[in-house]
């Protein structure tokens, strides 16, 4: 019992640490345009409520391996992981329904005065902005033949668009947006990470809770076969892959195309259910089925190792 309690405490602590890391990353990414302690604090709260399913997926999936190291009995480990996973899913769903703050308005970037702004192969530098006038403006295009410096003590400035007219050319004083640093999957391009359990999917708490629990089952179930591997490091890596698979599957099942397909196929079987209930049922069924197969496989592997 003591080992179980210690493992459960570690499970919850790991969930919280992962959640804090993801929330911090999300808050940093969403506050790059207007950084500040207050936007960061609000961002942390918001991102924690967005990222908890990902932290839950990791902790339940990897929990199969880490608990297995600490405790014997694969089925008991699966039950423990699912039990704690359901609890965290219920808490997360309830928090998301009651605490999700609105999106923070992002202020437009301010025109840069007193500094030099690169624009492609050129640059523009302004000492000060006074209403519709820019003071002491210098600009140059490096591709132009020498001499290339353009200078004027005053130049017309459009505060609305941030445009500056100088020497017959128009320069933009609005700094280029910072490079997008979203949370993306390494090596898989710049597409943002598909987050599981999109809060906009359902307005019903019960349905959301069912989806969250089904997702826990899917993650835990897909990770069970990895326990069959005797080398824990390889098992850990395999369970990471299983989690990735579960997250991608959940993201795909959330698309309209997948829902339409599910509704059509279930109608053919005579079932007329909300597509989200179908998604939950499918995820839970796949999770349980793979878990059962995994348990059989790991039992056989253990017997072979014993022999």
């Amino acid at each position, binding site marked *: 019992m003591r*080992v179980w309690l*210690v*493992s459960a405490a*570690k499970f919850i602590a*790991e969930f919280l*640490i*992962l959640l*804090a*890391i993801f929330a*911090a*990353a999300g808050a*940093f*990414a969403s*506050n*790059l345009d207007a*950084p*500040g302690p207050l936007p*960061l604090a609000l961002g942390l709260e918001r991102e924690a409520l967005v990222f908890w399913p990902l932290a839950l997926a990791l902790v339940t999936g990897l929990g199969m391996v*880490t608990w297995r*190291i*600490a*405790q*014997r009995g694969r089925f008991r480990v699966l039950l423990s992981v699912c039990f704690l996973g359901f609890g965290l899913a219920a808490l997360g769903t309830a928090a998301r329904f009651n605490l999700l703050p609105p999106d923070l308005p992002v202020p437009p970037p301010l025109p840069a005065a007193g*500094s*030099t*702004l*690169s624009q492609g192969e050129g640059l523009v*530098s302004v*000492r000060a902005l006074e209403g519709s006038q820019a003071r*002491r403006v*210098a600009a*140059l295009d*490096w591709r132009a033949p*020498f*001499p*290339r*410096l*353009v*200078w*004027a*003590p*005053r130049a017309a400035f459009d505060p609305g668009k941030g445009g500056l007219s100088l020497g017959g050319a128009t320069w933009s004083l609005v700094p280029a947006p*910072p490079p997008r*640093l979203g*949370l*993306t*999957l*390494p*090596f898989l391009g710049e597409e943002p990470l598909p987050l599981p359990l999109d809060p906009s999917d359902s307005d019903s708490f019960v349905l959301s809770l069912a989806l969250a629990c089904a997702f826990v089952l899917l993650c835990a179930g897909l990770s069970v076969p990895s326990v069959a*591997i*005797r*080398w*824990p*490091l*390889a098992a*850990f*890596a*395999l369970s*990471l*892959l299983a989690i990735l698979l579960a997250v991608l599957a959940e993201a795909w099942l959330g698309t309209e195309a997948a829902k339409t397909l599910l509704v059509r196929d279930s109608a053919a079987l005579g079932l007329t259910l909300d597509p989200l209930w179908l998604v939950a049922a499918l995820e839970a069924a796949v999770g349980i089925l793979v878990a059962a197969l995994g348990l059989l496989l790991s039992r056989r592997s253990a017997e072979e190792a014993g022999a």
Partner: protein
Amino acid sequence: MKPGSRVVLALLACNVSLFAFFFALALFGYSATDIIPRLALRWELAEAGLGFLAWYAPLQFIAAILAVSTLKGEVEGIVAGTAVPAIAISALVAAAALVGGPLLAREKQACEILSGRFTTSLEGFRRAVAAGDFAEAKVLHSLLTAIDPKDPRLVEPEKRLSALSIKDSRAKAERDVEAARDPAGAKAAWRRANEFFAKGDWYNAHWQATLAGRLDPALLVESTRLAGKAWEAMMDATGDTDLDLAGKAFFARKLEGYGLLRSEDFIGAFRIFDELAKSGHDKDAEVRRYLKESLAGVERTTFWRDEAIDASTEASLPRLFLRFSGDKPGTETILAARECAFTSGAAYLADLEYLEVRADDSARLLRARWAKVATGRLFLISADREDPGSVERPEALEIPAGAGIDRGRTAKAPASLDFRLSAGDLWNLAAAATVPASLPAFDALTTLARARDYGIPPVPLLDDLQRRSGVPFEAFGSTMLGVLVGLRFRRPKDDRRGPSLLALPFVALLTLLAFQGIARLDLLAATWCSRLFADTRALALSAGLRALFIAALIVLAVGATRADPDHAASPTRAE
């Protein structure tokens, strides 16, 4: 094998093979059209080094995990045996990354800039030779030979350059005669010659008469006669009446040089005394003295262009733009140069535009093809050492208050002016704007504090400093976390089978994926800190966040090690 030896061997093997991999990649990726053959090895080593520094941490992480996860024995024994060597190797790699990183970045940049310049100059050289533009071809040829004199692509155009040189000498002689024609100046010189002759000042009478004849051929007969009379009077006065024709010519030339020296035309004087010294009169005491004086004068006001060309083949940076306040309130200076080249004590600026704005918004704009910064001054006149007559002078425009450059009036340009920045300052500021990774850490930190004062956006430099300040965390974190993760996911004690080789690439790939995710997160936090403060406070904040992050990862990595039933039940001696 002892746990420590195994970890050391794994880390060393990982680092050496990683460098070898990137070197092979650089060899494969090398293209003679991008990098000239003379610089190939330098570029490949720099490229391999930078590739190694970008990827060593995830690889060390994987190596440490694999090495430790296959160890058997007590946890305490493994930790005690692996911690010290892992920390030592991490310290070595972190130090190498911090010291070697800027050098490698600088080396790679230099190779790319030089190769790019060689390619564009070679095209320009071929065009200039084809168009018969000897002056342009000569400048480009000196640049090309300074970069790589042995490049086979130079052979063919060089042959055509020699032919062009002969043709140009003839044309130049004709042009010189035409350019020297100045009847008004000749009349004035003729009047002064007569006045000096009447006063008995034979030296100056001879000099002015010769000048008058050169400026207007119509006065040639009379001026030659007067110069001859002055010459004879001079000979009588000095007692040297038995000079032969060569001696007379030498004396006349020396006299001409002396006149130029006294009128502060140091380049003209140097040109004559240099020519005399090279034609066998280098032992003449007066030639030596005046050559030294004229050279000192040249160096006070002028610089040699070949210095700039030589410097640009060693260390140069493109596109410098500075904007800084002047000493008096309301005044400021804007400096733009297409390229800066550096030697230990000087900086050379190509295509310089230097605008001094006064408090009332009037300004003076100076333009120079070449300029030199040394000893607290900005020199604007340059000359060709081989052809001192070929002088590049600056042009100046006086811009009235409230007007733009197009309304500027031509003004007298100074030969040099006071300049507050040293060559080292210029290097730091130029590198901060273009290649911040090439600045040593201390220079980068001091430049960060003053970048804004010189109109340089601090963000690229700060981003680079953030990356560098992450190096110790990266080096130690990757190794220590690797050891801890390896410990947590060790093979069971009773497992007699070795680790599956099939699982290895898979484990490595997923670990790499996880590491890249962590690196991405670190980048996000560092960028957020830089956007919040944009100065050194951002470095302190991100260091704090990194420490927290590593602590969180350590807690995650340590996990259930203690409760491990397969290992803790009957501990055995570490292998």
